[in-house]
C-alpha cells in the first residue's frame, strides 16, 4: 500500500510553496514577499483562530439543536414509541458501564463493538486486498479490462442486500455471512475508484517511467499504484461507509453478538432506547475510522495539494 514517496516524505517538512531559485526570483519576485505588508498578514492570522472556533461551534451546535428538537417533539406528542434523549443517554450509560437496567445488555458495549469491528474491518480488508490489485490490473491491462469489466458492470447494480439469502446458504447463519456482505459492499467502490485512478493517470508518466528503465511489476508498484492513490483513497472512504451500513444487515441474520444484532434485539423487544443507542455507537465508530482514513490520506498524499480531505 505504501508508495515509495510516503516513507521518505516523512523527512520533508511541509515547505512554503513559492520561492524560486535566485535567478527566477529576480525575474518574477514572489508576490507575497514583496506586496504583503505586515498589517494584513497579522489580520489574516488573527482571523484564523476565530474561524476554527466558529467551525467547531457550528459543527457541534447543529446536533445539539437536533437533540433539543427531538426532546421537544417526544414531549409534545407524548409518544411511548420513541425514547427521549435522556432515556437514550441512560441506556448508553447502562450499555457501557451497567448499573441502571442490569439486564443482558448492561456493560456489553465492548463485546458487541469488538464483534462488529472485527467483521467490518475483516470484510473491508478483504475488499482492499482483492479490490486494489484487481482495479490496478483492469485499469492498466486492456485484455483484462475487456475480460472482466462487462461482468463487473452487470453485477454492480445488484443491491448487496439481495445477496443475503445466497450468502446465508454459502456461509451459514453466522458472522462469515456478515463479513461476506461487507466485503461485497466495499469491493465495488474500491475496484471502480482504483480503475478510475489508473485510467486518469497522465500517459506521459508511464512513458517517462518506461524510458527510465521501469517495466513489468515494478511499473505497477512504482508508478501505477502511487499515481492511483488519490483515487484509491476516495474509494476507501466510500467503501468504509458501505461497510458499516452492511454490517447491520449482515448481523440481522442470527448472529448473537454485534451492534446489528443489538439493534435487531432492541426491535424485537420494543426497546427503542436500545435501538438508538446501537445507532449512535455505529455512527461514532464509523466517524472515528473515517478520521483515521482521512489522516492516512493526508499523510500519504502530502505531495498532492488538491487531495487533502
Amino acid at each position, binding site marked *: 500500500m505504501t*508508495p*515509495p*514517496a510516503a516513507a*521518505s*516524505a516523512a*523527512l*520533508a517538512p511541509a*515547505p512554503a*510553496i*513559492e520561492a*524560486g*531559485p535566485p*535567478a*527566477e526570483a529576480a*525575474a*518574477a519576485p514572489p508576490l507575497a514577499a514583496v506586496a504583503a505588508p505586515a498589517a494584513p498578514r497579522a489580520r489574516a492570522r488573527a482571523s484564523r483562530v476565530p474561524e476554527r472556533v466558529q467551525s467547531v461551534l457550528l459543527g457541534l451546535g447543529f446536533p445539539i439543536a437536533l437533540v433539543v428538537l427531538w426532546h421537544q417533539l417526544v414531549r409534545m406528542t407524548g409518544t411511548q414509541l420513541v425514547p427521549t434523549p435522556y432515556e437514550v443517554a441512560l441506556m448508553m450509560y447502562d450499555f457501557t458501564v451497567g448499573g441502571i437496567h442490569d439486564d443482558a445488555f448492561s456493560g456489553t458495549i465492548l463485546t458487541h463493538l469488538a464483534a462488529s469491528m472485527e467483521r467490518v474491518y475483516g470484510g473491508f480488508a478483504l475488499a482492499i486486498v482483492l479490490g486494489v490489485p484487481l482495479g490496478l490490473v483492469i485499469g492498466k491491462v486492456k485484455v483484462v479490462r475487456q475480460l472482466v469489466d462487462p461482468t463487473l458492470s452487470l453485477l454492480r447494480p445488484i443491491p448487496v442486500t439481495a445477496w443475503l439469502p445466497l450468502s446465508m446458504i454459502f456461509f451459514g447463519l453466522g458472522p462469515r455471512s456478515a463479513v461476506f456482505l461487507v466485503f461485497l459492499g466495499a469491493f465495488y467502490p474500491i475496484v471502480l475508484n482504483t480503475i478510475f485512478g489508473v485510467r486518469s493517470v*497522465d500517459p*506521459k*508518466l508511464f*512513458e*517517462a*517511467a*518506461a*524510458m*527510465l*528503465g*521501469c517495466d513489468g511489476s*515494478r511499473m505497477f508498484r512504482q*508508478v501505477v499504484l*502511487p*499515481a492511483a*492513490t488519490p483515487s484509491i483513497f476516495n474509494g476507501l472512504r466510500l467503501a468504509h461507509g458501505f461497510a458499516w451500513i452492511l454490517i447491520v444487515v449482515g448481523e440481522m441474520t442470527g448472529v448473537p453478538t454485534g451492534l446489528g444484532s443489538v439493534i435487531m434485539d432492541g426491535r424485537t423487544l420494543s426497546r427503542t432506547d436500545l435501538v438508538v443507542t446501537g445507532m449512535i455507537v455505529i455512527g461514532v465508530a464509523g466517524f472515528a475510522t473515517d478520521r483515521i482514513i482521512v489522516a492516512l490520506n493526508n499523510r500519504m498524499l*502530502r*505531495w*498532492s*495539494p488538491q487531495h487533502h480531505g
Partner: protein
Amino acid sequence: MDKTTPRRPFLAVRDVSKVFQIGNGTMEALRNVNLVIDKGEFVCLIGASGCGKSTLLRIIAGFEQPTSGEVDIYDHPVSGPGSDRGMVFQDYALFPWLTVRENIAFGPKQKGLPVARVRELADEYLHMVGLAAFAGRYPAQLSGGMKQRVAIARVLANEANILLMDEPFGALDALTREQLQDELLQIWERTKVTVIFVTHSVEEATLLADRVVVMTAGPGRIETDIAIDLERPRDVSSMAFNEVRRSLTQRLTSHVKRRELKTAA
C-alpha cells in the same frame, strides 16, 4: 558542417513513415523521413504545428512505432523506449509523488545500482541543475523552470546519451526560457550529450542548434537541413545572428501561402 555520411552513423532515421488511424480515416503524419545525426550534435527540428516533428521525436524515443522504416542507433534498430534516450516533455511529466531527489534518482534506482551510487548520481545532477536546496520538495511546489530542470537532471542521471526535447521551454516565461537555454547549452558542452530539440521558434533554433532540420506538413517530411555556423556563445543581437534567423524564417514560410483574410460584408 560538412555532411559526409559516416559508415556507421550514430543515429539514423531511415525511410520512416507514420500513418495514424483516426476513427475511420487515416492521417499521414510522416512520409519517408531520412535523417542522420552525429554523436554530440545539437539538432533542432522546426516546423509549423502538424508537420510531424513531435511524432518523429516520439518514434526516436520508441514511444511510437513507425508504420514503415526504422530508427537505428549504431545500426541497432530501436524497438521501444530505452534508457539511452531520455525524453524531456513540454509539461515535465515528473512523478508528482516523488521529491525532486527521488525523481532524479528514479532511473539509477531502476538499474539496481547500489544505494550509495544512486545517491551520488542524484547529488551530482541536483547540483548541476542548481536544485540542491530543493531536493526535498515535491514537483507541485516548484515553478515551471525548476520542474524542467528536474526533468533534464532526471534523464541525465539515467546516463542517457541522447536528449530528446519536445518543446521543453514552450510553457515558460521569456526570462526563464532564456536562462534554461543557456543552462542547457552549458550542460550540453559539459556532458557531450546528443540533443534533438523540437521547437517552433526560429530564434530558439538559431541560438541553440548545430543543425536545423526544417519540416513541412501534409504529410510531414524534411524540407531542408541547414548547418548553423555561428560561433558560440551566440549573441542574439548581432548582425550575423539576425541574418541566419531571417534566412531560416524565409525557408520556414516560403511554402506557406499567405492567406488573405476576407473583410466582413
